[in-house]
């Protein structure tokens, strides 16, 4: 069975979010937007119109439902379901701007590319009960599990544009996706590891009689020169779509190529930064072969420039692939050790998404579901690697966690973890597994409530009910430590529970105490530290590193 996760589009919630819609419109090169007011709500629609910032559009046209909407290229639908139904089949970009809680009640799934719930029109207190749960449930085809009371922050932005197909033979969806987007000659990117593992056939089989161009020499890191040469190949062969089949570096390289050919810029440097990439027109399909990183739904691309000795960081909602295919067959051959660390990587993503400051009710639902799935299937997948049921669940969990953290961001675990990886060349997942419990302990006082709630997802309802309330946060951390221990046991000691456990192929220790200074320095420069609920200085980081050594 192949399940599909829908794209949520962009959800803007809270104070002054209408103004943010304007920036999005600017990014998409919208020239003539219009507000369409539902009959009977003209006054409120006008108010909504006024919230859209000055400076970009001197004034905005507003028409009624029946008005002439032909000349416009972006529709802002101010009203409820009757209005969005009317424009359901309209191909243009649309923003839905509900004007009252009743309008929100009517929404059960994404209707338009944007949903703007501005505080000025709908007060936080008046959000219908369970609205976000209903919404996220519609995105995941009902997979989302109830996480209890919804915590609604004052303001948040959620964005997810990737349509995900996952299941045991999800790759069978590939021809349909290619046809839907009119791709006749795709560029297929992968690396030698995939080819030698024999996984390439799964994809090429689905090409049917489509011609395609194969590039399988992607190295283990994504470099600008490789990106440029692949882009040349794309243009020479007149391809019209990109398939990135592999792990993190393949996907990042793919994204680099995607940027290059869609925007046709000479120097990618000009796009570096956060929030400056417009919608890319060329179809991009991500087919990950690892389970845990969630890289098929991330908004980031990292491309290094060895000549200039720096890494270019691109951060944008529009860097999420158009489509992602999670085929459980691809991860079936993953050895137990890799399964366990990628699984804990997903766990870290989900837990951090649930506890960091950018958390929002939609990502909360996804994170909760991911954690519950991992609880039920991670150890089982390590014990019984060929059972596709567990692989499927892990793939789903990884994807949900990926969507969650792409929007709520991650915190100190990743700041330190990235740095350990950079300085000591330790595998990403190993670093995350080890650092998760101690960082949570560091954050505990501030995120006590969230951690307490998480106990149910991490250990199950029974454990939750039998633990006294004030002890729950501590118990969650303890349970996560237990996971690490259990997985260490199941993988014959390869899954680390301490920093000193992280070893290279020859058995040599990768992380040494001398590296701590460098690690702490690097951590302070990692963007995710911003989102950690508790401020961390260099000495705090050193303390954490010592604790889990």
């Amino acid at each position, binding site marked *: 069975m192949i399940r599909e996760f829908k794209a949520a589009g962009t959800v803007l919630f809270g104070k002054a979010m209408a103004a943010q819609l304007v*920036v999005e419109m600017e990014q998409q090169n919208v020239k003539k937007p219009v507000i369409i007011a539902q009959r009977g709500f003209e006054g409120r629609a006008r108010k909504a119109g006024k919230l859209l910032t000055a400076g970009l559009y001197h004034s905005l*046209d507003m028409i009624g439902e029946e008005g002439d909407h032909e000349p416009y290229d972006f529709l802002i639908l101010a009203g409820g379901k009757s209005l969005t139904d009317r424009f359901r089949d309209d191909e243009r970009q649309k923003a839905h701007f509900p004007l009252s809680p009743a309008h929100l009640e009517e929404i059960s799934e994404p209707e338009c590319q944007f949903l703007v719930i501005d505080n000025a029109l709908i007060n936080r207190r008046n959000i219908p009960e369970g609205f976000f749960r209903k919404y996220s449930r519609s995105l995941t085809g009902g997979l989302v599990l109830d996480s209890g009371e919804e915590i609604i922050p004052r303001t948040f932005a959620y964005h997810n544009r990737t349509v995900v197909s996952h299941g045991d033979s999800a790759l069978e969806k590939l021809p349909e996706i290619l046809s839907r987007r009119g791709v006749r000659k795709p560029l297929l990117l992968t690396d030698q590891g995939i080819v030698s593992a024999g996984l390439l056939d799964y994809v090429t089989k689905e090409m049917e009689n489509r011609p395609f161009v194969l590039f399988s020499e992607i190295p283990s890191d994504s470099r600008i020169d490789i990106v440029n040469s692949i882009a040349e190949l794309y243009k020479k062969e007149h391809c019209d779509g990109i398939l990135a089949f592999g792990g993190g570096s393949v996907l990042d390289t793919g994204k680099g190529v995607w940027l290059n050919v869609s925007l046709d810029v000479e120097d990618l440097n000009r796009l570096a930064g956060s929030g*400056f990439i417009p919608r890319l027109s060329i179809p991009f399909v991500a087919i990950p072969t690892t389970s845990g990183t969630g890289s098929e739904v991330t908004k980031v691309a990292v491309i290094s420039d060895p000549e200039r000795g720096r890494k270019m960081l691109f951060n944008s909602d529009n860097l999420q692939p158009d489509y992602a295919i999670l085929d459980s067959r691809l991860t079936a051959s993953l050895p137990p050790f890799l399964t366990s660390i990628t699984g804990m990587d997903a766990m870290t993503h989900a837990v951090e998404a649930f506890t960091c*400051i950018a958390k929002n009710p939609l990502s909360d639902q996804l994170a909760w579901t991911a954690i519950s799935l991992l609880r039920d299937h991670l150890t089982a997948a390590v014990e019984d690697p060929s059972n596709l049921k567990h692989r499927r669940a892990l793939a789903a969990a990884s994807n949900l966690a990926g969507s969650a953290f792409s929007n709520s961001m991650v915190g100190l675990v990743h700041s330190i973890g990235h740095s350990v990886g950079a300085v000591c060349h330790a595998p990403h997942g190993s670093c995350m597994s080890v650092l998760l419990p101690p960082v949570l302990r560091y954050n505990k006082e501030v995120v006590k409530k969230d951690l307490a709630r998480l106990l149910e997802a991490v250990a199950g309802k029974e454990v939750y009910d039998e633990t006294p309330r004030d002890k729950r946060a501590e118990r969650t951390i303890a349970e996560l430590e237990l996971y690490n221990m259990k997985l260490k046991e199941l993988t014959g000691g390869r899954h680390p529970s301490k920093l000193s456990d992280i070893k290279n192929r020859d058995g040599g220790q990768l992380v040494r105490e001398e590296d701590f200074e460098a690690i702490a320095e690097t951590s302070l420069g990692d963007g995710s530290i911003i*989102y950690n*609920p508790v401020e961390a200085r260099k000495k705090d980081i050193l303390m954490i590193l010592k604790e889990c050594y």
Partner: protein
Amino acid sequence: MKTIKGTSNRYLDINLTDSTWSVYHVSHQDLIDFLGAKGIALKIFHDRFSRDGLKAIDPLGPDNLLIYSMGVMLSTGAPCSGRFEVVTKSPLTGLMVGSSCGGYFGEACKTAGWDGVILSGAAPEPTVLRIDSGGASFEPAGALWGQGTHEVQESLNLSPKEGAAVIGPAGENKVLYANICSGHRFAGRGGVGAVMGAKNLKAIVARGKEITYEPARPELFDKTLEKSKKYIHRNGVTKSYRLYGTNANVRYGIKSGFSPVRNFRDRWHEETEKTSGEAMAERYRTRHSACRHCSVLCGHKGHYPDGKIRQIPEYETIGMFGSNIENFDPDKIGIWNEEMNELGIDTISAGGTMAWAMEAAEKGIRPSELKFGEPENISSLLKDIAYRKGEGAELAEGSKKLSEIYGGTGFAIHVKGIEVAAYDPRASWGHGLGYAVHNKGGCHLGSYLISLEQLMGYMPPHTTMGKAQWVVFMEDMFSAVNSLQVCLFSVFGIMTEPVIPKYLPKFVLNIATITMPKVAMMLMDWSILSEYFMSITGIPLSKWGLIRAGERINKLERWLNVQMGMTPDQDTLPARFTEERDTAFKGKNTVVPVKKMVRQYYRLRRYDNTAGPEDREIEKMMKRNRTPKQVKPARSTIKLIYCTTVMAVLGWFIPAVACRKTSVREEVRALPDDFKLRFAIWPSGPALSLMRVGDRLKKVALTEEEADMTVYLKSLEAAWLLLTFQESTCGSEAAGRLMVKGDLPHTCTFIRLMDKVEILLLPRFLAKRAVKKWEPVK
């Protein structure tokens, strides 16, 4: 069975030339502006033709449109709502004509889900059109072509769900005053039947009962229903119609001198009483035979001496084929009525043309078989007209065309080509003005002022004072009524039943109506009509809104007429009414001072020298609520000034004060040498630019291209929230309010710098809100 709230707003748009059809959607704004039925049909004409196009339409050619237009009231079950409008360019006048019709076709069409049918083009051979909820289909008419109106409806073998609109031989032969028949009712005037015949369409059959309609506001609808039923039942005029049909007017005519006698020469005859409603009721032992949903029940059937049961003719027919041709045998009129119905001929125009022919023959202008007081050849001549044989070929053209060829225009009793109805305007000047200015021509139902002047006696008939105002008012009212559509007869009860006009002494009313028309109008209450519209469609409409809608419709119709070639000299009465004073009538003999009243009318209507509304007025009408409004974004000068000030303060503070602190300098050292940093509000708001010099930051001026990293706040609102410390810097980023262009990794340093600055700058309680962890800055 599907239920629709309000109305379906869909018209079947049929091209008879290539037998195709599509759906025309009436927009919401059109419904608001033009109400439905007649109004919408006129709008369709306006939209589909250019100004020159309107003039160029040949009424009997394929480019003319024939529109059956139903209205929101039909099939709601409201009293007197079983009518629909037929609109086209008339072959008799060359101007727009709208004719109202009863019968089942309207309801069948509506309950098939169609608010109307637009017919364009012409079928290649005689055709029958079948309509149902799925659309339209076309069949050859075959043997049906040539049959009479009732004969063909029999042949069609209609099921109880079906209603038909058909033409008789007159329509087939394009007699200029041929009509369309639905059941036993007719869309009489203007030659609409000829247009249908020219399109080779013998019949339209609609199969209904698939859709029911529900009012948008059911409680209001029910309330209005109750009120209107009450009024109609009580009203005196409708009471007399209920008893004697429209022929109740005959006795009034005798008394007041508006009987049409001898081609409108005499105004009175001693034998006219034989054709009165009362006399006929007795003679024929009449009983009711009316439209569906009728509360007035003006239609009657009776037993004729030859043993047949026939429909009792209407007042018009009795007049035009009775006293007007000096025949006083009602039996004959009943027979001719039946014949004309079967042939599909308009009785008023037929009678008027024949009367002219009789007088023209008498005066030696044109020989004719017809003669006043000789009824024997009428039947055969009616047939000749329908088949355009013998003298009928010429008579089929109508009195206007004949008088233009032969002379005798002074006694060709028509206005704009349509023969005047059976009310002599010399008895009722206001009614005369109505004839002269009505868009359609000499139709009495434009403003029907005779009802107020003579039938109800509310207004003195022989003064010009106030008449123009009343004609304007009633025209607008009736235009609206024809667009709802309800039967005009119900309007009397609705308008005059309210307490004041009912019980005020007549002489007071007589003075009030002409000296203070506006006040007198306000005594009437037609809010029932606007409430009907509002309760069915949900669109708010007041009673004056209804009048304004009627005004729009009326003016649109006039403008279309002007484009089609109408000229100011056509707003007049035949010379008989303006010059011949002395008649056989023993009461007051007058002529109608029509010129003066028409001038007053033009002034009130604000018509220009084309005798129509200015083009600008129509353009404005069409633009109502159809152009987009402009929403100007709220500009907050206060917020802008505040943010600019804070940025400026920071520009001084950071280099001068903050950089003195060791821990701040530590952070600065984390940045590359000569690092250029910019902090700005998108897209072109106030900005702060800093550069690393040594281990301090210096304020500089930078453009976006020059900076290594620019941190943008996405909007002025976002900046306000940040700089008033309602959101912390991290919180701002978490909410997605920042955009960073350039080197992302240094964002952390920037945020830590900002935190330290805020700690230094602000009192502790404020700073605590702005940063994650408050620590003194060394």
